[in-house]
């Protein structure tokens, strides 16, 4: 039993609570695209109310009342062009015996163990027909704030953006205009199933005929557009291309025979809008690009109908909050608003790419420099396999002495700040072209590793070939190797600092800490001789070393000589062949450090009046509604609260029209 507070237009101002009994609820699903409810009035009248997409409602209308249907259709198109989401409402009176017999079937279907969904759909079909149209509703499904900006920034970054939506074609085109995906200068290719020719064939009703005809149509259009496209391509200043395709046509275009044409055409367009797509088609389009074009795909959605698309792409992102959490649960990343995608990709994505490249390259470099030193040693030992370094040195090299700094780099390295990353989205293309981890980069690091290992080995061993102590005592193998190892650890850690773009306090701590840990380790290791050591080669080695002045001269010389080559290369590269991000770094080198200021403070002076107003409105205390989405925004909501607080909000166009029509109705009173 539900109660509805009704107030009739005739009795303006007086409300009463009327009770209705809800007998059955036929729930919404995306195949049926409608939902219905059977209710009993207080006077025993049985009514079936239905709400759904206009196509499905119109299919099920009864005869009669044709004028209203036509007028409503015109209105629906107008609403669609205004970018509103439309729904149709219809009702049907039910005779009690008809209802009873149907109800039995419904109960059986509802309690069946297998194929429940299908049976419920079939049962619903039985009763959902012969409707009488009540009218249409249109809801403004506002774009979230910042969406057009975000889309524009992402396309500057070289990311192609496609829109896959379940809305009508007019709504979808409107939204694309609002997002700057389409504009009037672009050449638009439209493949729609709402042309007159197709409607004619549909009215004839023969399914196979319709299918064949539509396929032919789609094929013809695809071919035609594919032939036209190259001429726009050749001139670089020519208009960009856009493709708009309908869900029904997409069904035929995704078939294996036409798929390649669709893919070629759509890859040439700078934006693609698909409307009236079902969730399955969304996934199919995503797979088409992923497998056919071998590009990295990212799909972002907020509703349950986006789940399959999110899972089909390489990266799936769910927007949380508006329409439930299904999209979030199926996704790889979840963000709260669409505009955060910009941050996610341009800031964090780019930083992650740079950090990964650095960490991997550094890891290979440091191990190469370390191991090749032993390799050069084998030439002197007659390839007998004698190890140059003590076992503990080798084991702990990667664990203690050089491990933490590279982790810190992987966590914190930023080539430019987040605000600059968003300001220059074209820097994202560096990652797309894989400029920091290609063969050339790897070869350069490897060369320097070889050079450094030569410096380590030969400088140390040649300089210690005669006595090094002022008393004339000679160094042994383990003294030389400890000296070399000390140089390796110091050099490799200093090289890390040279490779960082931003050095935080943690970098200093970890680099300094690693070197200090090495000294602490070697002091302890060579100072202690226990019963369990296999051999005592390392006993007192470091103290012997540190008692000579040779140690200090070598420790000064060898890291500098080893890093000389790297430093020279860095200087030359940055000067004569700079990467794009380095140019940006240079030009913003003197910007004040503005990390701690929240963004709103920085940009307060630059708000346009619109933005200022929406800022203020967003700070008003709001009623928290269960329907937290904009789709359920009613026109007067904003203006009501705003006027309470003395802020002015211009009323919407249809709001004005509605109030005007109401006034005229009540006037005669």
């Amino acid at each position, binding site marked *: 039993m539900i109660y509805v507070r009704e107030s009739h237009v005739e009795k303006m101002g007086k409300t009463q609570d009327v009770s209705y009994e809800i007998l059955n609820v036929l729930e919404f699903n995306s195949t049926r695209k409608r939902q219905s409810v059977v209710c009993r009035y207080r006077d025993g009248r049985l009514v079936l109310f239905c709400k759904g997409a206009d196509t499905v409602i119109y299919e099920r209308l009864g005869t009669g009342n044709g004028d209203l249907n036509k007028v409503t259709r015109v209105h629906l198109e107008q609403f669609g062009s205004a970018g509103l989401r439309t729904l149709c409402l219809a009702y049907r009176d039910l005779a009690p015996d008809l209802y009873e017999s149907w109800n039995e079937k419904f109960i059986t279907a509802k309690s069946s163990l297998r194929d429940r969904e299908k049976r419920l759909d079939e049962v619903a079909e039985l009763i959902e027909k012969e409707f009488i149209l009540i009218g249409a509703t249109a809801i403004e499904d506002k774009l979230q704030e910042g969406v057009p900006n975000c889309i524009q920034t992402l396309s500057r970054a070289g990311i192609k953006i496609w829109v896959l939506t379940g809305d009508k074609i007019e709504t979808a085109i409107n939204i694309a205009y609002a997002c700057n995906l389409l504009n009037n200068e672009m050449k638009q290719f439209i493949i729609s199933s709402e042309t007159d020719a197709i409607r004619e064939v549909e009215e004839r009703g023969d399914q196979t005929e319709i299918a064949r005809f539509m396929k032919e149509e789609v094929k013809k259009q695809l071919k035609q557009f594919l032939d036209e496209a190259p001429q726009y391509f050749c001139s*670089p200043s020519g208009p960009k291309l856009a493709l708009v395709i309908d869900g029904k046509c997409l069904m035929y275009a995704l078939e294996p025979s036409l798929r390649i044409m669709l893919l070629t055409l759509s890859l040439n367009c700078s934006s693609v809008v698909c409307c009236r797509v079902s969730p399955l088609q969304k996934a199919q389009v995503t797979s088409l690009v992923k497998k056919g074009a071998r590009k990295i795909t990212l799909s972002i959605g907020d509703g349950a109908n986006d789940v399959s698309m999110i899972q089909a792409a390489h990266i799936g992102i769910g927007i949380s909050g508006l329409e439930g959490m299904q999209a979030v649960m199926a996704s790889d990343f979840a963000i709260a608003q669409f505009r955060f995608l910009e941050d996610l990709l341009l800031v964090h994505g780019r930083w992650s790419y740079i950090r990964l490249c650095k960490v991997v390259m550094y890891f290979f470099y440091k191990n190469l420099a370390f191991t090749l030193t032993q390799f050069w040693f084998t030439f002197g*030992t007659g390839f007998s396999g*004698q190890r140059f370094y003590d076992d503990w040195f080798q084991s702990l090299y990667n664990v203690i002495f050089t491990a933490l700094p590279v982790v810190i780099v992987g966590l914190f390295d930023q080539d430019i700040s987040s605000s600059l990353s968003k300001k220059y989205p074209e820097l994202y293309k560096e990652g797309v072209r894989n400029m920091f981890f290609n063969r050339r980069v790897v070869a350069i690091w490897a060369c320097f590793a070889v050079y450094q290992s030569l410096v380590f080995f030969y400088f140390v061993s040649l300089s210690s070939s005669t006595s090094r102590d002022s008393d004339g*005592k000679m160094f042994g193998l383990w003294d030389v190797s400890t000296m070399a190892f000390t140089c390796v650890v110091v050099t490799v850690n200093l090289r890390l600092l040279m490779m960082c773009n931003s050095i935080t306090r943690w970098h200093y701590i970890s680099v300094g800490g690693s070197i200090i840990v090495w000294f602490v380790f070697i002091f302890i290791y060579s100072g202690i001789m226990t019963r369990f050591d296999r051999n005592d080669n390392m006993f007192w080695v470091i103290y*012997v070393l540190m008692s000579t002045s040779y140690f200090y001269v070598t420790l000064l010389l060898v890291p500098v000589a080893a890093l000389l080559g790297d430093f020279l290369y*860095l200087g030359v590269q940055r000067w004569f062949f700079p990467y794009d991000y380095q140019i940006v770094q240079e030009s913003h080198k003197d910007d004040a450090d503005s990390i701690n200021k929240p963004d709103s403070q920085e940009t307060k002076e630059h708000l346009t009046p619109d933005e200022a107003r929406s800022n203020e409105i967003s700070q008003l205390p709001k009623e928290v509604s269960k329907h937290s989405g904009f789709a359920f925004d009613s026109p007067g909501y904003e203006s009501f609260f705003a006027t309470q607080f003395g802020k002015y909000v211009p009323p919407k166009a249809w709001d004005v029209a509605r109030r005007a029509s109401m006034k005229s109705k009540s006037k005669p009173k």
Partner: protein
Amino acid sequence: MDTDRERHRARETAFYLFTQQSLPACKPVLTPGWVIAIFLFMGVIFIPVGLISLRASHCVVEIVDRYDIDCVPEPSRMDKVSYIQDDSIPKNCSHFMKYINPSWIDAEVNSYSLQMYVKSRSDKQLLDGQKYHDTSSCQPVESNNNRPIVPCGLIAWSLFNDTFEFIREGAELKVNRKNIAWKSDRGHKFGKNVYPFNFQNGTLIGGGKLNPEIPLSDQEDLIVWMRTSALPSFRKLYGRIEEDLDVDDVVVVNLMNNYNTYSFGGKKKLVLSTSSWLGGKNDFLGHACVFVGCSSLTLAIIFMLLHVKYRRPYGDMSYLPWNRKSFSG
């Protein structure tokens, strides 16, 4: 408003900065000025250091004399191996060396091959003597006739046993054979109560014999020899001449050419050298420092010239590819 202040305070905490990736950081940008400055600085530091090292190395006098060929008498020069292994032939030899202020003597041996050799020792046994039984690392010179060898191992077995005597103007120069090993080795690695046992008793004699009455911690020859060296060509300290020698003194060396380096093609040399604060005569460090310093200065100068000639406007955004393209439409 209060919430704003709270929010601002929350933003200052270290944890917030850490998780929001906004830690205060220094962002070093390598400008041309810095590159030139660093190269100049390195040049300024390394050239003096190099020159000082070179001077230290030059004040060391070193005289190297290869004797292994000369000391084999003429008839046996063809077959040096059998000469050296023949115990009956006395192996004296006399050499003349002209010195200019030497005071250390090193023996230099070339061309040893290392791995098994380096492993073939047992440090525990050196400390504990026969009480220590696990001498498997000493293979293949572990025991002889079922009696353990102390000290075991190839390194000890191949103990260098050439001896040298120095005579100047008829009087013998005293050579201090004590204190030639590192104090840590003498004190901690070689036991005070361990005596050589069953040493060099086998059929194949690798080197010198040890006096079984002197404990290992006093056998400095053995200690010095056991400190394995890094390269195949190495020097070991033989002893110290503590008297001052004058310029142009002629010293006669009487040596016993016992040690067999002929079977592996090695060379033996006698080195007399003085030592400075940086050790023996080794120009390498000095040369390397000077080289690094000079090349830094050269690079600094080259960079300065290039900077003047090919000046890329620093931080000029028109060099960015997307800005560049816009010029051509």
